[in-house]
């Protein structure tokens, strides 16, 4: 693959040490990853596997113990690397005394927007996350799902080329999930790169072109979802139509390889690679 990657990590490692005796936790271990421009990339893994830590290193919020990371070819530690990035942290908190609209405008201004363009973008993204009605209210009065939505809005207000969403669907109602899913698809259609951290495998399946699975800080799987999962929607057909479809496919040289429910496929694929224990080994 040529060209500049949206994110390129090489041997990224992060040790946390804490306590008086300096106990070490290796949160991310020799992670090398390349996320191509225009992809929706799913970062999966059990709790504590190092997904958020990886993202924070990519954004220059944490310094890596070893290895390096670049965003569109610029080292993560440089401020200019963050010009083209939007980030939604997990369980986000915001300045409680600002209204939703003021908050998004504040982040927009920090990214250099002003005047008419700022107003237009703020309106656009607030509508995009379905928060028009609550935009005038103080963020301190927002529910968890609303915080998540305003978080997505601030992440994309400056129309960045790369959007990193750490569990954007957590705490969001089904309608909200559908809206945010649609928003992510729109972003992709406009050529943006999206990094999505999620635990809901169905959402990942529906959205991602490629996934990586981390376990205890190590990359255990990295693969495309496209080829294997393009037929997923077919599995929602009722049994009688499946036979019809099979005949239709065979008449055109296609093969219906599986009839199982798609939802369980990624889980089957995910679970055997993740041992039941959750201890993080010392490096």
């Amino acid at each position: 693959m040529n060209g500049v990657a949206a994110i390129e990590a090489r041997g990224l490692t992060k040790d946390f040490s804490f306590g008086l005796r300096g106990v070490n936790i290796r949160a991310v271990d020799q992670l090398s990853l390349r996320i191509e421009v225009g992809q929706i990339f799913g970062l999966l893994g059990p709790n504590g596997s190092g997904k958020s830590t990886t993202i924070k290193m990519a954004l220059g919020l944490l310094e890596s113990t070893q290895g390096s990371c670049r965003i569109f070819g610029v080292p993560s530690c440089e401020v200019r690397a963050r010009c083209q990035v939007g980030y939604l942290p997990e369980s986000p908190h915001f300045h409680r005394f600002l209204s939703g609209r003021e908050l998004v405008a504040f982040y927009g201004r920090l990214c250099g927007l002003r005047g008419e363009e700022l107003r237009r973008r703020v309106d656009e993204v607030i509508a995009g996350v379905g928060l028009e009605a609550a935009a005038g209210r103080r963020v301190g009065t927002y529910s968890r799902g609303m915080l998540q939505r305003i978080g997505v809005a601030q992440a994309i207000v400056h129309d960045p080329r790369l959007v990193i969403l750490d569990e954007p669907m957590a705490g969001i109602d089904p309608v909200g999930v559908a809206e945010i899913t649609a928003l992510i698809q729109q972003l992709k259609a406009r050529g943006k790169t999206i990094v999505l951290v999620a635990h809901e495998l169905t959402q990942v399946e529906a959205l991602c072109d490629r996934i990586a699975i981390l376990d205890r800080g190590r990359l255990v799987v990295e693969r495309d979802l496209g080829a294997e999962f393009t037929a997923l929607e077919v599995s929602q057909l009722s049994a009688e139509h499946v036979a019809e479809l099979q005949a239709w496919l065979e008449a055109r040289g296609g093969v219906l390889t599986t009839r199982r429910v798609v939802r369980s496929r990624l889980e089957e694929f995910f679970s055997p690679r993740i041992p039941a224990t959750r201890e993080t080994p010392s490096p």
Partner: protein
Amino acid sequence: MTAVPFSLRRVWLIACVTALEAARQRVFHLVLVLAMGLVLGAHAFREFNFGASELKFMADFGFGALTVFGSVLTIVATAQLFFGELEHRTALTLLAKPVWRAEFILGKIGGVMAVVTVFCALVTLLLLGTLYFRQQTLLAEHPELSESARALDPMAIIAVGVAHWLKFGVLAALTLLIASFARTSLYAVIVGFVMLLICHLHPLARLASARTDSWLLRGVAGMVSLIFPDFQLFDLSASIDSVGAAGAASLIRLVAYAGLYFSVLGSLAVYSFNRREL
């Protein structure tokens, strides 16, 4: 991607949000009410006056309240606003934008100083008003007192208020330096108060160094005088009777002195925060 230059506009934006947050903190309201209450009630405490003219006593008392409550406000607000941003992880979202950490630190100091400015201005103006009112009452009651009663110069009162404000600026930078490496807000507050104490002990350090033969003690006293700003210098209340040319000159010297310490402490805070993991 082109380089992102340091931007005063972003500093201003962060300072505005910080000031807004600070103005809503209960500690700010409480401290403001207490300080203003003491200024208004200074007259009632004149039992404790041992010889100074009544107006001079009221001014000293008011500035005492400004020092004590202003220091508490500066230390607590700086630590709380800084750690609030880290603990609630709003700093994550903020610093994930193209924002320099120096802009963040300066924005925080700016926000704190906005609140401290309002505090100093309100307390000083209230004190000025109280003094004026008392002066008029005294003049009406005792025309023979007019000579000493007229001695209080409003410009001198404002100059003393400004000197306090400068001191709080240095104190905010010092507290932010501590907060930039501290793990908890409580630690930053406690160390901040210890530092405040040390900054007031310069005369003691000079005395110790003059009276002792021990090179160790002299060394320690010398270090204290060099590293820590001397907060006694900011006490201009001796010149409260009249500001004059000497008062103006000492205020200018203080601005330079405070500016120097503010820059050095602020730069160290930026240096330390640049290394901090979020």
